[in-house]
């Protein structure tokens, strides 16, 4: 009995240590974004000054707007292309299908540094060069496999007889997709979209390679700012990003259930 209780206690301690390890740096940063001292001096004195000056920082705001816009456009493109690709892979048998499916996974595993270098060279080679459009293309390429993987996983739980049943009742391809297949895969589509948004919004390496001084994204801008000299504004913007990212991830967890029933 006593041993069980000790084990239980140790287990709980372990979880708390793990959570502390994950969240302590973030919490400290968030707290410091509300501290008067720019040099992490204690005692803690409450202020929203840094959030105020963040508002005055045009460069940071422009970069934030770029990041959000690129993330949204990336999400829309990836969700449409990715869902369509998943449906095609699910419905049709064609030559080289297995090979194509296998090719979808390596981009997820290849280090972003290498992908970024390759994209930079390629975009220069074909005349696209650097800038926001190049960043958008890069983000779509990075996020697309995630959407396909997530939507395909959801499709694995879809019974093909449902499409056959719909067709036997006179529904054409579009009606089948819209009224039977899409409602079923919607949780996967939403989860895939949130993944795509997160991949794009958090993306640093590829964006850094493809950004130009005027056309940059928030993570790249933060990195540049830190190199020039640390300011508590960075804490403030980081805190905002963390809140938004965590909200997104919680939404993802809500919608994304591999093989789960509704």
């Amino acid at each position: 009995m006593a041993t069980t209780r000790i084990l239980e206690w140790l287990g709980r301690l372990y979880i708390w240590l793990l959570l502390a390890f994950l969240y302590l740096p973030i919490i400290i940063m968030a707290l410091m974004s509300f501290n008067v001292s720019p040099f992490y001096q204690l005692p803690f004195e409450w202020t929203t000054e840094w959030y105020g000056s963040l508002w005055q920082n045009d460069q940071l705001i422009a970069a934030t707007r770029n990041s959000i816009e690129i993330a949204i456009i990336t999400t829309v493109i990836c969700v449409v292309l990715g869902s369509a690709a998943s449906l095609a892979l699910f419905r049709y048998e064609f030559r080289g299908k297995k090979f194509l499916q296998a090719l979808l996974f390596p981009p997820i595993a290849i280090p972003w540094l290498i992908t970024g270098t390759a994209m930079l060279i390629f975009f220069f080679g074909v005349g696209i060069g650097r800038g926001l459009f190049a960043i958008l293309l890069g983000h779509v390429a990075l996020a697309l496999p995630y959407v396909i993987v997530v939507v395909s996983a959801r499709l694995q739980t879809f019974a093909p007889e449902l499409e056959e049943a719909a067709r036997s009742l006179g529904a054409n391809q579009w009606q089948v997709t819209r009224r039977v297949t899409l409602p079923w895969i919607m949780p996967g589509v939403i989860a895939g979209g949130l993944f795509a948004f997160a991949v794009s919004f958090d993306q640093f390496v590829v964006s850094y390679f493809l950004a130009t001084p005027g056309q940059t994204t928030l993570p790249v801008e933060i990195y540049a700012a830190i190199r020039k000299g640390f300011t508590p504004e960075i804490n403030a913007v980081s805190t905002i990003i963390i809140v938004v990212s965590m909200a997104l991830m919680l939404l993802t967890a809500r919608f994304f259930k591999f093989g789960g029933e509704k």
Partner: protein
Amino acid sequence: MAGVQVSNVSRSFGAHKALDDVSIDFADGGFYALLGPSGSGKTTLLRQIAGFDFPDSGRISIGGESVERVPVEKRRIGMVFQNYALFPNMSVADNVAFGLSVRGEAKVVIATEVQRALDLVQLGTLGARRPHQLSGGQRQRVALARAIVTKPRVLLLDEPLGALDKALRVDMQIELKRIQREIGITTIFVTHDQEEALTMSDRVGILRDGRLVQEGPPEEIYDRPKTEFAATFLGDANIFRGDSTGNGIRLPDGTAIEAGAGPTLAAGAKASCAVRPERIGIATDTGAPDTTNDNVLKGQVSKRIFAGNNSTYFVERAGQTLKVIVQNTGADRLAEGQEVVLRWSPESTVLLPAG
């Protein structure tokens, strides 16, 4: 409503011949069972009639109209799937309404027709439920209502009762038959369950390895099978193999078995005889048997299985195990190990070509 004609339909998947020159005439308003073991091509045939797949050669017509290249959504058929395939994101009523809705029928018409279909399958009050809130039997009824609400020309059922437990299955057999009679729709029913085929259908087609083995009313196939396969697949049968004597066979040990039915076969050719277990009389061995008209064999009871209303005796005879089913009349039961005489009339014996 319409009859369905399948003429010389063949379909191969790679080297595998799933259907090999199959022709069947499904009469208008009839209830037809396609019976066969798995891999016999019965489901492939149903999918050809439905339009999910097209034949390599041959013709299929529904109501006199050639449809072998018409896709399923344009064939005006109703289909019930093995696992029902109800749309999980829709209510029962929306499931049933689907076929009318994709056709663009008016909302008022849809509501009336859906209610009528649900009433027909006795689920009139469950329209608002979701499929996962229903029992297996209820899902089955929803699937049926959904398939018939569009007034299809033919109703196709792919092992629709396979997922139900035994008691419910018997109920649904009766129910399905009632609904089919009520709306008078041509119905084609795929099953591997011989009992289902016997009890429900007007006609049965037995398939094996993509070929139609025999086709006809269930009584005819049961009483007059044309092959050993048909005899053993639809019901139980004792098969004797030997040389044809013209109107029967001679077993290797010289015993003659006279057959009252079957084709005329050249004497001396390899042939077999089929006898149903319930047609054989069994009695204790009381000396010299009277062989006036009947076929008579001696054997020894090796096993008895008591099933309440009847008993099945397994009788060993010249290395062959014969099966005899005896109604429970309260008469003396035979013990295992007992010497017995089996006796049955030539009319109960069907001569079959070898193979």
